[in-house]
């Protein structure tokens, strides 16, 4: 997120009237150069917000991208269908990863409880045999 904040700090003074197109081009270039899919989507959303909404676009993009990255429902009406699809794919893949981790944790917990259960069972049986 620090990259995102840096970009905003640099570009907010640029975004105004005639400089909107230049800002959009700069952010688009950052999106193309980004090595991480999340960064690519963030920059693509910012570029499209500036292109569609002008100088107000960065503020709106910042608010909605924060909602997206914090797991809340973003309003991406201004984004192109392909960028909006990328953002939804990001959320869907994040949900899949969370579920995989939860499933692995449940399986691990199941094994631990199974082991403890077996120990209690053995103790109960040996206790009963000893009577």
């Amino acid at each position, binding site marked *: 997120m620090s990259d995102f904040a840096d970009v905003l700090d640099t570009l907010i003074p640029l975004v105004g009237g005639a400089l909107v197109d230049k800002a959009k081009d700069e952010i688009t270039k950052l999106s193309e150069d980004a090595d991480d899919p999340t960064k690519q989507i963030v920059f693509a959303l910012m570029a499209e917000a500036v292109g569609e909404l002008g100088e107000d676009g960065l503020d709106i993009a910042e608010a909605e991208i924060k909602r997206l990255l914090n*797991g809340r429902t973003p309003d991406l009406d201004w984004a*192109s*269908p*392909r960028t909006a*699809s*990328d953002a*939804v*794919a990001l959320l*869907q*893949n994040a*949900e*899949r990863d*969370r*579920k995989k981790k939860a499933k692995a944790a449940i399986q691990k917990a199941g094994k631990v409880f199974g082991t403890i259960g077996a120990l209690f069972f053995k103790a109960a049986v040996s206790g009963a045999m000893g009577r």
Partner: protein
Amino acid sequence: MRFLALPLLVLLGGCATKAVLRDATTYQVELDQYHKWATAQAAYLRGFIEDHCVCESDAEGPQFDDPECEKAADFVLTIEARAEWHKQMSLWNAGMLQQEPPAQPPEIASLSCPLPPAPAGE
């Protein structure tokens, strides 16, 4: 111990992402309907674009003469490429699909005029 359970549940509940519990059949039917609406509209829109939209002579910039055609074409290409993958992911995340979809969504064809052919099965 039971006195601790309720405050603990409240505390843990605050950390969790909001989740919904749905009837599986209704959810599947809804999803099928939205998918059908999107893909059928995309097919009709493709026909309208092919019949009525004019290509822009400068291939470097916008591909269509009319900006509305440009936007419509972008929707058609996105829906044709991604609708099925998003639906599969919705079903997978709901635990309603046996085969896990790939992590990478399909590529969306670049915008061009005339439109590239629709993917097979569309």
